[in-house]
């Protein structure tokens, strides 16, 4: 381990530089983390650069944050801000603020977020069926 990460080649959304910014933040973590974390970081970086499955990207972010944020709060703060500006959570109660609020809390996965939303729906008696499956989508830019 480990070769230098390849350039960020997100051909389908090349103009969206938030992916490059996010990938760069992840790259800056390699020299300051132990090799044990590198596979996880490579997966996160790859998903940010070229991924199309934003649910997976979010799960990778949450997993990396869970293990690394205590020592590296600032890069995960920057990533969180980029993700909440660039992605949206569909299926929650308030789609506009849902992802921002979900990422401020200490959820470990998208499934955790769904459980928390379901609990809130139940407690506020907002619907018998709970929270529908959540989907993370990219915010369309003009």
């Amino acid at each position, binding site marked *: 381990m480990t070769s230098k990460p390849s350039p960020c080649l997100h051909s389908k959304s090349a103009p969206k530089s938030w992916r490059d910014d996010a990938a760069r933040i992840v790259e800056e973590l390699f020299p300051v983390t132990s090799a044990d974390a590198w596979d996880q970081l490579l997966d996160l970086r790859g998903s940010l650069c070229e991924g199309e499955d934003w649910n997976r990207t979010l799960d990778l972010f949450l997993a990396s944050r869970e293990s690394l944020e*205590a*020592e590296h*709060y*600032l890069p995960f*703060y*920057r990533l969180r801000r980029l993700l909440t500006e660039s992605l949206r959570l569909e299926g929650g109660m308030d789609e506009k603020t849902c992802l921002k609020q979900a990422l*401020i809390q200490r959820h470990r996965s998208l499934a955790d977020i769904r459980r928390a939303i379901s609990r809130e729906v139940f407690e506020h008696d907002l619907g018998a069926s709970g929270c529908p499956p959540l989907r993370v989508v990219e915010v369309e830019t003009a």
Partner: protein
Amino acid sequence: MNTTTETSSKKETTAVTNGLKTLLADSYALMGQTHLAHWNVQGPNFFQLHVAFQAQYEELFAAVDEVAEHLRSLDVLAPGGLKTLAAASGIEELAVEATSAKDFVAHLIEGHETLLSGAVTLRDVAGDAEDLETEDLVIARIRAHQKTLWMLKSFLKNL
């Protein structure tokens, strides 16, 4: 002095004063954000951060005055007023909502980084224009922001 040199010198002076106006606006905006953090910070580190943020916004208040008065010494009017300064500043504003102490610190780090980046450019512009007084003032501001960044980043380690 020939015309080409005069024009070049005027351009450099304008670049310096424009840079000082931006430095003023960014410093004022960051002072406001630091004041916001001072008021709204909560949690186990409240006393420590409340006091630290106060020291930081007071330092920025003095810096704003120094930069504005330096602009006047260059015979340029200093920009002022919240709307004018907010429009001229690149410092992002936090929404007024419950924010963790760590997020306040991280937000202020980003503000100081933005300000520092502009100040480094201004230092070089002032150096090229051989405006040693501005260069000296900006170097002092760079050192102040570097020191605050060190402190804020140290706070976030291993929390």
